[in-house]
């Protein structure tokens, strides 16, 4: 048992920063901050749910339907991410080779990996699933529809519910592993699958646009919309039987008076949940464990191929790195899919949004809101996708340190890593801006100006994300586990993406409305936006070079 605990703590340290545990002051600060963050999220969700209730979207005693919907979305997304991540972590993790040499039983390594993932899923549940559940329970409690005991009881089933996607992920990681290896061996099929997924997404977007009614008048149509939402929530509760039962285990059964309470039936269902979790654990243990040992015991040195295709070509300094990054980007499906998905989805998203706006008969305030939300929804996914950039240099693991030994300016390989992201983003940004610009009938010159403004903002944030990875490298995490599931750089990059996008959208609203009011011409507003983007881009690029100088040359002395 001690061995298992040590293994879990050891792997957790690789994935989550636990440095604060030993320092009492730091631990207290961390606990208080986490608690405040959790309470703020819960309070915000409670306010949103109360407003929805006031608007008549659901009645107080119907709030468990919201819980069913959220639990379904959350578990499905967790199941997908757990399956993919567990496949990598169980069968391809770099630390397997180290763990197998430790004086522990191989079974303990397998179980420790599952526990580490479970702990991480539990941590993630505090950011959405638990706050929403608590808000719904508070909504029920304040109206006398459930007792205070539900607050205490709900934590126990949550421990088992969160385990479900992890255990299912461990089981499903086996077929996914075979599919992954098959696709890796057959690049053409992999490419065809990618094209099919892409075609499916485009078809879905076109289908959704086709569903948009000719005239959207939310105020006038609200009663009908509200009834449709309520019918949908009722359907969710009726059709998603398993999820509904999971929620019933958390909040209890509905009595004839409409109140929810824990009774013998709840206990019976809870016992079934424990049983199902145990069965899933046994299946994953007996099904994936043998495969885990085979994959872990594979001699990685024999995996290397010494075959060379053709003669080596001599390239210039910069082109060598561009060539290398091009090959890495093409061969690393995670990275290339992330690029393409974001750069394809953003224009589709904006097309869908503007098709909906087109059906609205808006006044001037409505037009400004449309501009603002367009700016926000163009910036948000684009900038949030830069979180991946904040892991680029660390992903090289210990090989990343080789950059320091090369007889060239380190700026070349560092900038080359960003080259393809910048290249792919250019057509996507201009296509997105063109879709937005044409639907609101901007002049072509304004569209071009706005396109450059978004592009420089995007590249500025991209460079900032790369700088984060230079300042706080996570190479060791990637070197040991192959993945870093709680990379602080990713979190910072994502957080700033949200802040920048919101501020930029508000500034765009202010500048464009002023330009229209005082000059009757939006061009001045777009020029100012471009200048702001250039300042963000310039300052981040300057900091990027400064940090490279500091961290690659001055610190090593």
């Amino acid at each position, binding site marked *: 048992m001690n061995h298992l605990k040590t293994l879990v703590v050891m792997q957790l340290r690789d994935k989550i920063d636990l440095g604060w545990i030993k320092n009492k002051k730091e631990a207290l600060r961390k606990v208080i901050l986490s608690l405040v963050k959790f309470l703020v999220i819960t309070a915000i969700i409670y306010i949103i749910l109360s407003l929805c209730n006031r608007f008549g979207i659901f*009645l107080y005693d119907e709030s468990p339907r919201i819980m069913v919907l959220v639990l379904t979305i959350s578990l499905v997304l967790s199941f997908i991410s757990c399956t993919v991540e567990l496949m990598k972590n169980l069968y391809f993790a770099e630390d397997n080779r180290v763990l197998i040499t430790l004086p522990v039983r191989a079974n303990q390594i397998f179980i420790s990996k599952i526990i580490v993932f479970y702990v991480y899923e539990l941590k993630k549940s505090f950011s959405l699933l638990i706050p929403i559940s608590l808000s719904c329970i508070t909504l029920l409690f304040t109206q006398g529809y459930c007792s205070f005991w539900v607050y205490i009881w709900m934590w126990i089933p949550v421990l088992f519910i969160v385990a479900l996607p992890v255990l299912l992920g461990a089981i499903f990681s086996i077929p996914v592993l075979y599919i992954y290896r098959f696709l890796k061996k057959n690049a053409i099929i992999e490419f065809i699958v990618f094209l099919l997924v892409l075609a499916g997404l485009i078809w879905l977007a076109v289908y959704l646009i086709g569903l948009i009614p000719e005239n959207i008048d939310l105020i006038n149509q609200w009663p009908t919309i509200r009834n449709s939402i309520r019918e949908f929530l009722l359907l969710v509760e009726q059709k998603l039987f398993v999820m509904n039962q999971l929620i019933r285990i958390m909040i209890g059964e509905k009595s004839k008076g409409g109140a929810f309470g824990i009774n013998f039936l709840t206990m019976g269902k809870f016992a079934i949940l424990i049983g199902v979790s145990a069965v899933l654990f046994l299946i994953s243990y007996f099904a994936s464990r043998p495969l885990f040992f085979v994959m872990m015991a594979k001699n990685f040195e024999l995996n290397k191929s010494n075959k060379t295709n053709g003669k080596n070509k001599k390239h210039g300094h910069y082109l060598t790195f561009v060539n290398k990054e091009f090959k890495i980007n093409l061969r690393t499906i995670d990275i290339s899919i992330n690029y393409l998905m974001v750069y394809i989805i953003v224009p589709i998203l904006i097309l869908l949004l503007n098709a909906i706006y087109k059906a609205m*008969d808006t006044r001037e305030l409505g037009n400004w809101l449309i501009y603002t939300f367009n700016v926000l929804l163009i910036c948000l996914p684009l900038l949030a996708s830069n979180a991946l950039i904040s892991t680029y240099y660390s992903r090289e693991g210990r090989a990343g340190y080789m950059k320091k030994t090369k007889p060239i300016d380190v700026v070349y390989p560092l900038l080359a890593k960003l080259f393809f992201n910048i290249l792919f983003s250019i057509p996507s940004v201009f296509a997105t801006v063109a879709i937005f610009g044409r639907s609101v009938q901007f002049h072509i010159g304004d569209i071009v100006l706005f396109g450059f403004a978004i592009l420089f903002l995007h590249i500025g944030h991209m460079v900032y994300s790369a700088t984060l990875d230079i300042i706080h490298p996570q190479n060791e995490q990637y070197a040991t586990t192959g993945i870093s599931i709680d990379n602080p750089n990713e979190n910072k990059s994502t957080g700033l993406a949200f802040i920048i996008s919101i501020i930029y959208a508000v500034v765009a609203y202010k500048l464009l409305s002023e330009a229209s009011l005082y000059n009757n011409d939006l061009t001045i507003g777009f020029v100012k936006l471009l200048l702001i983007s250039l300042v963000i881009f310039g300052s981040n690029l300057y900091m990027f070079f400064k940090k490279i100088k500091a961290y690659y040359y001055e610190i090593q002395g």
Partner: protein
Amino acid sequence: MKKSVILTIGVIFIIAIVVPGFIGLRMRVYNETRYVEEIICITEGYTKYDPSKPDEKPKIDQGIEGYISEQFTPGLKVVIKCQLKPDNATNQKLEYAYDEKSRVFSVTENADGTATIEFHEKGTATIIIRATDNKKKSIEIEIYAMDNDWF
């Protein structure tokens, strides 16, 4: 991209539709006031009296539309939910008329338009649910809280 980021973008997308849809639409003068035309009780277990049944016909003649039967337990609560027709009736507020001196039950009107009837002892509660904009539109229903053998 993380799951929470995708969900947040999804939520913002919905907000981006709802906000201009509510506060950004061109003003229109809606002269028409839509009065409540029908009140439908949608509480679980609500049954309309059947005019073809001889024992239920007198109830209909008294103007009582239907009933809800529950097994009495101390503190039994029954939530009365109603749907209004048309869906976009201008004034959606309902008022509940009942015997306020009754020792059998008490009624609490909830903020979401529903009413909760709490039974203190076995008996029947007769409630009239009325539209506030059109007092002629109302339904009268009975809620029975009886012993098991009564059913």
